[in-house]
């Protein structure tokens, strides 16, 4: 296998990395770039724990090859807070106790932010459908949905 050199942007910063051609973006983020926010759950695109955005579009980083992102803009959970200042979604997840073990949380936050970027005033049904690609085995989802609805309301007021 011959390694591939890739230039991309992650959370706005230019990044250069070398990866194997069959290595996923998720593995590149975690193992080569030390960005362990995106989690590996299923590796088959079903659980959403590895959610990132590519050129603003939500996707599972386990379903993308590292080599594919040449020249593209990747958004990860590491880019969500502004320094020490948490994003309203992150704050509301804490307030509503919308997590227990926390493995699914980065994926939920990235997916929820992607939803609110496109739809600032979602209904509860829309939130549930938009987050159907993220699995949580702890919370039963209600607290997550409440946190997202509350964050959306707060962001509309801001």
């Amino acid at each position: 296998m011959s390694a591939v050199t890739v230039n991309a942007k992650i959370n706005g910063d230019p990044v250069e990395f070398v990866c194997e051609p069959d290595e996923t973006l998720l593995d590149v983020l975690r193992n080569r770039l030390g960005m362990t926010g995106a989690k590996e759950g299923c590796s088959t695109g079903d659980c959403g724990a590895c959610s990132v955005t590519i050129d603003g579009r939500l996707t599972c980083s386990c379903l993308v090859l590292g080599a594919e992102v040449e020249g593209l803009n990747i958004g990860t959970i590491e880019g969500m807070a502004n320094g020490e200042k948490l994003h309203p979604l992150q704050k509301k997840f804490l307030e509503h106790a919308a997590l227990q073990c926390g493995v699914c949380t980065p994926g939920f936050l990235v997916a929820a932010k992607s939803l609110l970027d496109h739809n600032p005033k979602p209904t509860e049904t829309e939130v549930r459908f938009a987050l159907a690609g993220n699995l949580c085995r702890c919370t039963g989802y209600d607290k997550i949905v409440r946190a997202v609805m509350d964050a959306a309301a707060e962001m509309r007021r801001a």
Partner: protein
Amino acid sequence: MRYERPNTLQAASQLLAKEKGSAYVLAGGTDLLVRLRTGFVEPDLIVDIKRVAVTRTIAKGATGWKIGAAVTGAELGENAALKKAWPGVVEAANLIGSKQVQGRCTMTGNLCNASPAADSVPALVAAGAKAVIVGPKGRRTIPVEQVPVGPGKTSLKKGEIIESLLLPARPARSGDAYLRFIPRTEMDIAVVGVGVSLTLDAKGVVKDARVALGAVAPTVLLVPEAAKAIIGTKLDARAMDALAAACSAACKPIDDKRGTKDYRIKVAGVLAKRAARIALDRAKGSK
């Protein structure tokens, strides 16, 4: 494994044709990456076609729509004009997977994955879609129903790549719809899927129709008898019953964990009526 990202489909086709080992086309990758990760396939070569501009484009011309092979489900859903012309096709494509999967998955991939239960395929078949294929011997265009030949198998030859899918322009008073049955509300694989496309005359009589069924045979089925059952009618109760009977009669399903043969045969008829009703309402509402 080698990863190549050529700038033209001709170059992509040559790479695939020359490869002595196993070679795969990569567009959205939502099926291929899963197979790669689980060891189901061990490619020697992956050819990413996303750098080829035509594969990323939705174009509307005089004869209809041209949808590039790498256009994602999310992009289809955001194209208001396409959604207006072919709501059933777009809805079907948007049923595939989650938001995350929609960000990557493509109708051409859904077609080439050749699953009998592929959601976009019955809608495409009902729409009369065609696949434009680029290969070592040049270009050819075939009806989409001729692409899958069995579960996981296509009629594409070595070196051939689907460049785009063509959807015809819509005559006045036309509508289409796709419905699937799943035991959940989201993120599931069709137990049965039905695509219906129809055009009415000025009096509201069906003058043209195509009906396709998914997940009830080794490949998606075009069912001419079902179309025949509604052409020349106003989709009254009798025509609806004839449609359902024709659909049920065309099914050649298997028993599996998602449903039994008998269940699939019954549901195919029920869903066909519901999809036809939606297509009819859309045709009446369209100019």
